[in-house]
């Protein structure tokens, strides 16, 4: 299974009659078992890119293809994990995870079984009947990931999912995500502005330019999992990406 973004551009209605461009000519291909990260300065259209890939937003030009078929609406085959978790506060943890299965009309005993299995896998057993706000942020994001996994998406889009977490929780969540990635082998498109996170998680890091977002750089991270955060090679990649982001920032300042 693959998700292809073909020549995607997006403009928003701007002040007056002039539209504001957010993305310009993005080409991107995601495959099962590939972990791709998009990094870029804030306001470069990363969230817009994910919304288009998820089918939540229509591009002004270009196409999104899932296994060759054009996508025009969200589908449970493409999961999206939000930075703000977006858990339903009126549902307990188990029912949050069951949501996608419930929509598909799977009977309660069966979906409960599957949700319990996901809880176990995400280390949340015993919290079935808690409500989201009773959990720490790290746990809430694990619930959100479990909820996304419940419908077995082959593509998982993640919008700065660990951005709100403290650095220790963030590290452990990264390891947790890599374990899921190894077990399930989905295609992951991850958005972050954290260089360390990008290098640690992914096989490919794409550098997005300032608005309107274009893919300006393509870093192939040739390190085996699990990656050593303090190794020389790891730091070399970090430096490369940091230099790219600095160049991007300066090009804006000069403009």
């Amino acid at each position, binding site marked *: 299974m693959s998700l292809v973004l073909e020549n995607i551009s997006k403009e928003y209605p701007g002040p007056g009659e002039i539209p504001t461009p957010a993305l310009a000519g993005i080409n991107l291909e995601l495959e099962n078992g590939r972990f791709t990260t998009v990094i870029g300065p804030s306001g470069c259209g990363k969230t817009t890119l994910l*919304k288009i890939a*998820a*089918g*939540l937003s229509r591009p002004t030009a270009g196409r999104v293809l899932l296994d060759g078929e054009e996508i025009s*609406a*969200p*589908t*449970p085959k*493409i*999961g*999206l994990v*939000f930075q*703000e978790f*977006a858990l*339903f*506060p*009126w*549902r*307990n943890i188990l029912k949050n995870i069951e*949501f*996608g299965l*419930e*929509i*598909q009309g799977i009977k309660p005993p069966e979906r409960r079984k599957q949700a319990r299995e996901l809880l176990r896998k995400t280390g949340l057993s015993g919290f079935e009947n808690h*409500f989201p*706000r009773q959990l720490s942020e790290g746990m809430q994001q694990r619930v959100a990931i479990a*909820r*996304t996994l*419940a*419908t077995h998406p082959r593509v998982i889009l993640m919008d700065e999912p660990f951005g709100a977490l403290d650095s220790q929780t963030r590290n452990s969540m990264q390891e947790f995500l890599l374990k899921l990635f190894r077990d399930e082998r989905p295609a992951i498109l991850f958005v972050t502005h954290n260089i360390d996170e990008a290098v640690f998680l992914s096989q490919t890091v794409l550098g997005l330019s300032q608005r309107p977002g274009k893919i300006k750089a393509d870093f192939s991270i040739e390190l085996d999992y699990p990656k050593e955060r303090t190794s020389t090679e790891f730091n070399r990649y970090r430096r490369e990406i940091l230099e790219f982001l600095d160049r991007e920032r300066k090009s804006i300042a000069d403009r």
Partner: protein
Amino acid sequence: MEKPRKSFKFRFVPLLIILLIWELAADLFLVSPAIFPPPSTVGKTVIELLVRGLPPGHGLHLHALFSLFRVFLGFAIALSLALPLGFIAGWSPKINRALNPIVNLIRPIPPLAWIPIAIVWFGIGLKSSSFLIALGIFFPVLLNTISGVRGVNPVFLDAARTLGAGEFHLITRVLIPAALPMVLTGIRIGLGVGWMTLVAAELTGVRSGYGLGFMIMTARDLGRVDAILAGMAAIGLVGYLMDRGILLIESNIHREK
């Protein structure tokens, strides 16, 4: 669980103090018992009204029951109109804009100002009072439902869509539960307004001969100040209990959040 119980103890102390002062004032003849009977007399009257009734045979509990029946009828009418309309207008900005001028022109007219026209249209009786109560409840419920639906965090809708939810599931599984707390607040405000409207509506007359407002008017005609006050106390108590009931439902829902 310990805290609420503690506050419960102290909550009624000021009320008791006021009743005590009232009682003493009447006993010391600072005010005439004929126009301001003490709480002990009013209490006795409540029992008399329950047992014998005013007019005889028309017990206080029956008056309250008839009043409640009118409120629930008006309540049902108001909800069955305000809830669907509120959800539709909350969902569609276009409809909301179109509805706005109508709502905002009718809303400032107090329900009491509708009494004369209600009597012309529906005569004196159940239809008239239910109409007035429905009017009182309708607007708070409508407005709170609209803002409840409009206030639903769009990220919940996006999340539900990516999990495969279509329009039907978005409304039943996301919009309604997410807006529910606001809707309940509207219902609570509406019930309060409706209850107040009802008693005023009953003052103009009822056909069945039952109703708390009607009973107060009867008491006035008979010069029974104690019965007027007893009726007022009953109106206050019933209104208070209804409010507590909704609050209880509300806090149960909030606890889940």
